[in-house]
């Protein structure tokens, strides 16, 4: 019997990178990007609470877990058992991964005028080389340690390419299942989404662990929106309470493009969303919305960045949070307005309700404005429910408990107005209602 000394996660990742290199094409230009990235991670390591950006989110416990970096065996899943995790009410393209491995029988990809397929294909097949050269790792940070960790291991994920004036016939779902075949599994999906001039796409992303075995996902998504492009991206974070997610999303927008990202955080143990918008053109519209409803000891940290680098652009941020039991929330919204970015309209709103004395929220707007003719507004509130509204509902015969739930439902639900897939909206509606104990079914 051999005993193995438990390695810490950073060391394990560094040594795994050597094994990883045995399985990829070392002559491919992307591999140079990976090598640079692993060096950055090696120098920086995991972020600690000493860093301002990680003051309220600790990764210490995750680093103590002996995660498998590569799953040892392929797993299969029966669609019937996992159907509920799909937005199956409507027809969609699907890119599905099981324990990090692409599952062709659960997926539905396309090359019909648009590409909805795998990053692994795009990284290796010659016909994609030109696009990869232009876009891959071009907006993702080359400096932030977890992003570079993902870049180092980047091999698989979703690849969506919508050429000029095109729109796929239906939305795309990207779903990652973790089966629990590994006692603890680390996943590092990498998505690349390119939406060219006047093109359009709607994407729903979900990470779902099917057991109570620990899962740690460190994901990076790059989105490029060309002139007049429209992108709607929905992040459904309703994972098992033993799953942790670090979501790093980087978005580059050109003139008059509209990108909306909605993040729905209900599940998971620890979730960190690093959502970064870079506006590289005029008359751009960026929308960032979130609903977070937590209980137990759940933790969700939203770090947003909107960088206004050109004049006449807008950004709209609206995050609502409801925190019960011992849950903790963080909202840090950074807005940078460059000197050249005159006539910027930047709005930021973060409203929170604490349901228990032991729940906490740390909310912080961070505005760096170098232009003088701009409209920037921000508001953070932390509070209980409006007493007058509560009395109004009670006076109509709705008991205090139900009235409270109904008000919270209304508070959270308000963010859903901009969801443009009705079936998804209904789904999220129901999740919110169930989480808060409101009887919905009252839709006429």
């Amino acid at each position: 019997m051999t005993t193995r000394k438990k390695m810490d996660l950073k060391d394990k990742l560094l040594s795994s990178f050597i094994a990883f290199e045995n399985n990829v094409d070392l002559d491919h230009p992307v591999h140079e990007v990976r090598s640079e990235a692993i060096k950055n991670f090696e120098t920086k390591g995991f972020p600690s609470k000493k860093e301002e950006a990680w003051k309220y989110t600790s990764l210490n416990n995750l680093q103590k877990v002996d995660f498998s970096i590569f799953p040892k065996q392929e797993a299969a899943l029966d669609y019937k058992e996992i159907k509920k995790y799909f937005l199956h009410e409507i027809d969609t393209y699907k890119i599905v991964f099981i324990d990090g491995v692409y599952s062709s029988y659960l997926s539905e990809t396309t090359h019909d005028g648009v590409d909805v397929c795998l990053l692994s294909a795009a990284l290796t097949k010659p016909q994609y080389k030109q696009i990869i050269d232009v876009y891959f790792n071009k907006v993702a940070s080359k400096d932030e340690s977890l992003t570079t960790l993902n870049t180092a291991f980047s091999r698989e994920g979703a690849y969506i390419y919508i050429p000029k004036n095109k729109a796929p016939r239906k939305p795309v779902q990207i779903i990652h299942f973790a089966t629990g075949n590994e006692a603890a599994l680390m996943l590092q999906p990498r998505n690349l989404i390119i939406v060219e001039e006047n093109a359009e796409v709607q994407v729903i992303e979900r990470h779902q662990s099917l057991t109570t075995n620990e899962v740690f996902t460190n994901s990076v998504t790059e989105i490029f929106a060309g002139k007049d492009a429209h992108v709607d991206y929905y992040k459904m974070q309703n994972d098992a309470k033993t799953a942790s997610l670090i979501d790093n999303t980087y978005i580059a927008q050109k003139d008059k493009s509209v990108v909306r990202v909605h993040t729905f955080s209900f599940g998971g143990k620890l979730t960190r969303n690093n959502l970064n918008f870079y506006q590289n053109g005029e008359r751009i519209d960026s929308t960032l919305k979130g609903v977070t409803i937590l209980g137990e000891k759940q933790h969700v940290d939203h770090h947003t960045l909107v960088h206004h680098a050109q004049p006449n652009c807008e950004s709209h941020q609206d995050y609502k949070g409801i925190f019960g039991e011992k849950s903790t929330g963080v909202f840090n919204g950074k807005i940078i307005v460059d000197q050249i970015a005159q006539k910027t309209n930047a709005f930021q709103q973060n409203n929170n309700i604490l349901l228990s004395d032991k729940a906490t929220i740390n909310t912080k707007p961070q505005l760096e404005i170098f232009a003088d003719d701009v409209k920037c507004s921000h508001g953070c509130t932390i509070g209980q429910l409006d007493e007058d509204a509560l009395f109004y509902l009670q006076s109509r015969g709705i008991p205090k408990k139900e009235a409270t739930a109904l008000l919270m439902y209304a508070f959270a639900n308000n963010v859903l107005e901009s969801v443009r897939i009705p079936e998804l909206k209904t789904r999220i509606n129901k999740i919110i209602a169930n989480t808060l104990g409101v009887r919905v079914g009252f839709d006429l």
Partner: protein
Amino acid sequence: MLEIKNLHASVEDKKILKGINLEVKPGEVHAIMGPNGSGKSTLASVIAGKEEFEIKKGSVSLEGEDLEELAPEERAHKGIFLSFQYPVEIPGVTVTNFMKTAINESRKARGLEDMPANQMLKLIREKSELLEIDRKFLSRSLNEGFSGGEKKRNEIFQMAMMEPKLAILDETDSGLDIDALRIVANGVNKLRGKDNAIIVITHYQRLLEYIVPDFVHVLHDGKIVKSGSKELALELEEKGYDWIKQETVV
């Protein structure tokens, strides 16, 4: 039906009601008039059960049952309805969903099943027609972006839906133009019957031309200083509240 005896009430130790006596019998309409700050809205809130008001002395009872220990929703279940002077805006809850929840919660409290959907629809259609409310209006968020008149009409629509035993209309006429006033008054009058009662709180006599009261009471400095028939309202309109104030001093 409603019996108020020597009612003293305070908010944050500020005495507002200073000994009110009032009895309202089934089938009656009472008007309560008085200058600003005389305690009219406080009286309405105390009857409906708003927590920030504290009963210091005296009692309020409905059909012989003391209300003091009852939560606002329990009072609603017993048939008390308050039409708010300033209805609260609740984004995210539609008028229809709100009414369905209110009606079914009240039914639940009485041990009844949820109202079947088709019956609910029929009721909503009937009552919204009574108040000349557009169907589109019903799927909007409760009071959000409503004009003053729309808010008041919506209050009376809710009253029509709930069919209360005792309705208290707190300044329902404020913010209404003459057409809206007529619609609202018509709605209220349709609900008058021998088994229910209405308290109309108003600053002006105008509404009382449409909702004709059996009794008029004048509230001043937390007390009812004068009671009379509907002619008292006309007298007040003519002479103003100073007349009452002076008379009280004398």
